[in-house]
């Protein structure tokens, strides 16, 4: 008396199919789960027994063995409850095996037999190669986002039993209304004055360049960062599915709608490394960087983040994926983000204004030492943000609307596509040389900057990429002129005060 029921688990952002094998036979009564269940998974034993009994079925007083295949991967969470219960009923011949053939089961059981939702429904349904999938009612809208399987929402185990035994049709539940994803109305037009940072945001969006904003409290750094997603191109179907899957895997309900706009994540500076890059439990839950995949990761108060956390960001920023490795297995978490960071220029808040800043040299040095050079070097754009002047706030004309800027950004992205990359930030080495030549005047200017120590060799490539994006935004063709180069240099200020540190 054996049953096989298809189900799935989530590791990282991917679903993995799991076959729940149940054997009911003679022996000491009891239920044993094998196949590397973790604590929450092993507790299924008690939930399943209570749920089955609450659903009006007699619990078999026999030895029940549940094997979760493949038995080499760690199983975590309660999402296998429903599959285990169905497996027990089939193995005990309370249900006919044919009645549940080709149906995958996902869901956690309550002691009263109710079926509850579990995190990661999109990757879970995606992993099941079944014609029908039985899911909790609350998870049905998200499950329906996956193309292919037919979704059967259920509220209780009793409904499953009734439908499978043919007593009643599969229930037709009112699904929770699809909450339309409200696009927060954050328009660049709200930004008054602040020409430099406006351009920097546009360049960051167009070239996917990482951006560091340095400015005193109250200069609107958060307000500016939250307007970046609004000028990024929307996500295409594949990207939207990928982003939605990550959010679902992290346990965030999608309300039955794909995420079609680039996300913005703003973790607090007390975030731990696991919270930021992911991993931690056996489920390898995606971290904030992965949740920002395809969008913007905003780190406010950059200098307050723990240095080890920041160093852990360097590899994902470079490669666009995080590889979290644990003893038993590893996961690849997508992490292609535009990093926007903000920090105060100095502890006294005077922004290092010559003659006004009260910070002693030592304190300034210590404050900046928290940021490793290699991390600072990842920022193509380093812009000083000052409190907008009163006149600009009160009388100043509204800036350009996000819509207008987004159109230019989209055009610039097309120019990058023509070079075979997603955005100019991905251009390196010879390809950069090929696509971004300088004209004689620009060349002379850069040579001068290098000679005077205003620019380092490493900074040169970054200035070059930003110049190219500026040219793309302006619709400029041909070699880069001094105009673009000097703007790129203006958008890459020294964040280290005092000593003439090269950009």
């Amino acid at each position, binding site marked *: 008396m054996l049953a096989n029921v298809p189900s799935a688990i989530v590791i990282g952002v991917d679903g993995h199919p799991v076959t729940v094998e149940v054997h009911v036979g003679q022996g000491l009564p009891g239920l044993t789960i094998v196949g590397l269940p973790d604590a929450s998974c092993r507790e299924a034993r008690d939930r399943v027994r209570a749920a089955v009994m609450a659903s009006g079925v007699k619990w078999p007083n026999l030895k029940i063995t549940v094997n979760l295949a493949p038995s080499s991967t760690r199983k975590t969470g309660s999402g296998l409850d429903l599959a285990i219960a169905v497996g027990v009923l089939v193995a005990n011949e309370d249900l006919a095996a044919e009645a549940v053939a080709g149906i995958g089961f996902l869901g956690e059981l309550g002691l009263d037999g109710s079926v509850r939702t579990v995190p990661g429904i999109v990757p879970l349904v995606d992993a099941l190669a079944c014609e029908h999938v039985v899911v909790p009612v609350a998870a049905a809208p998200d499950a329906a986002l996956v193309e292919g399987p037919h979704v059967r929402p259920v509220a209780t185990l009793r409904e499953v039993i009734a439908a499978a035994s043919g007593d009643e049709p599969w229930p037709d539940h009112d699904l929770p209304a699809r909450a339309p994803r409200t696009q927060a109305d954050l328009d660049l037009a709200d930004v008054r004055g602040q020409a430099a940072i406006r*351009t920097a945001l546009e360049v960051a969006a167009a070239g996917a360049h990482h951006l560091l904003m340095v400015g005193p409290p109250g200069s609107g750094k958060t307000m500016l960062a939250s307007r970046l997603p609004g000028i990024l191109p929307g996500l295409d179907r594949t990207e939207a599915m990928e982003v939605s899957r990550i959010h679902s895997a992290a346990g965030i309900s999608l309300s039955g709608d794909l995420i079609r706009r680039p996300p913005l994540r703003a973790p607090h500076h007390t975030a731990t490394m696991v919270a930021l890059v992911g991993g931690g439990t056996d489920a390898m839950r995606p971290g904030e960087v992965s949740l920002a995949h395809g969008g913007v990761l905003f780190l406010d108060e950059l200098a307050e983040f723990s240095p080890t956390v920041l160093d852990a960001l360097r590899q994902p920023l470079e490669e666009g994926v995080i590889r979290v490795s644990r003893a038993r297995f590893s996961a690849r978490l997508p992490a292609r983000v535009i990093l926007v960071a903000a920090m105060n*220029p100095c502890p006294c808040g*005077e922004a290092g*204004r*010559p003659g006004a800043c009260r910070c002693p040299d030592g304190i300034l040095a210590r404050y900046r030492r928290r940021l490793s050079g290699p991390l600072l070097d990842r920022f193509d754009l380093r812009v000083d943000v000052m409190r907008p002047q009163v006149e600009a706030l009160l009388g100043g004309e509204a800036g350009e609307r996000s819509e207008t800027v987004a159109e230019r950004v989209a055009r610039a992205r097309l120019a990058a596509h023509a070079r075979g990359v997603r955005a100019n930030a991905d251009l390196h080495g010879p390809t950069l040389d090929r696509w971004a030549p300088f004209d004689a005047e620009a060349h002379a200017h850069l040579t001068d900057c290098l000679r005077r120590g205003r620019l380092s060799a490493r900074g040169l490539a970054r200035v070059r990429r930003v110049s190219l994006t500026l040219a793309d935004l302006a619709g400029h063709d041909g070699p880069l002129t001094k105009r673009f180069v000097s*703007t790129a240099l203006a958008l890459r200020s020294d964040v280290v*005060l005092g000593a003439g540190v090269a950009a």
Partner: protein
Amino acid sequence: MTLAEPSLAAVLIVLSELPGVGPATLLECRSHPDPAALLGRVVSGRAHREAILEPAVSAFTRRNKAAGRSADPSEVAAGWARLAIALDPAEELARHRADGRSVHVLGEPGYPERLTEDPVPPALVFSEGDLSVLAGPTVAIVGTRNATRAGRDLAASLGAGLGRVGISVVSGLALGIDGAAHQGLVDAELPASGGRPIGVIASGLDIAYPSRHQRLHRDVVRTGVLLSETPLGLRPTAWRFPARNRIIAGLADAVVVVESRATGGSILTAGEAVARNVPVLAVPGHPTAPASAGTNDLIADGAILARDIEDVLVAVGRGGALDVVGGPVGEGEGDGLRPPDGPDEAAVLAVLGVDALVLDEVLARAGLSLADGSLALAGLEAKGLLERRGAWFERTTREARPGRTTRRSGR
């Protein structure tokens, strides 16, 4: 030498190396009839039972306590004893006299004349360079470390200008105004008859603090003199700076404060100058400029207005005809700079006054787009007409001020 009684200088050096012994304590030790006996008490671990040393021991004990370390006077005295035993007075004296350095004891020949009448004269002065510089006329130029570019430029031109009329410049070799004044003087490369730099530092003579001024230290030693009351090898602890400021005030015929915030070390220097009847001059600034808040306060309190070098010369009684060496007084630093190119550069230069501006402010005030503004800023920076420090743009020079003849003839 080891068998003989150690000299007074040697004893005082060892005493000054004990942590917690400041200028006041050392001065009392100097006045003691038998300083060697005092050192004997320290060596035997009974410093805390000696009336002269007890306050220093208690003060150091309190500081230890505040820092969460052991807080028992006898332990501090024991620590002093260990240190004093390890130091051989004769060797210490030899060490402080090596490498062209000298040691001067209050009341002995060779001690700087200007300091003998000081209310709190340093019992010990270490020097490196030519001490005879102190005999000539001197003016101290001091100010904030975080100075504006305009302030530093003014300090440099004052330093050079004073040097040209043979007045030596006393300063503290700190970042900002202090360093700029001496750098200006050193860069003027004056002949021997010109004024020379007199550096008074808070650390030992062998330690350049801040380290960025290492080269300036060497230049001051080469062309003038470097002074300190701190023994070799000691880093400048916070209390040594105000103590150093009193020596600056004591060595100068006048003290010019170029820029200072409302509370700052230069205000303390001005106070020390007042206590010594040394005239204080202050460079005025815009009322809203933080870097000039302190100097404006000084003027309100009766300091002499210092608009340019002539005001300083009048204050030291040198307002008349002058023997000028190495170029005219107040020679502009902007000579040889290329003029701005085109209307955009001119517009940017026009909005850059004394105040430093950030990029957005430059763009807004000059009415330029980011691209045009960046181009203009890059051009001006390449010409040396402006300087970028962090987020801030500052003008390096200003046009020569209108002539002062009208005002002076009106006097």
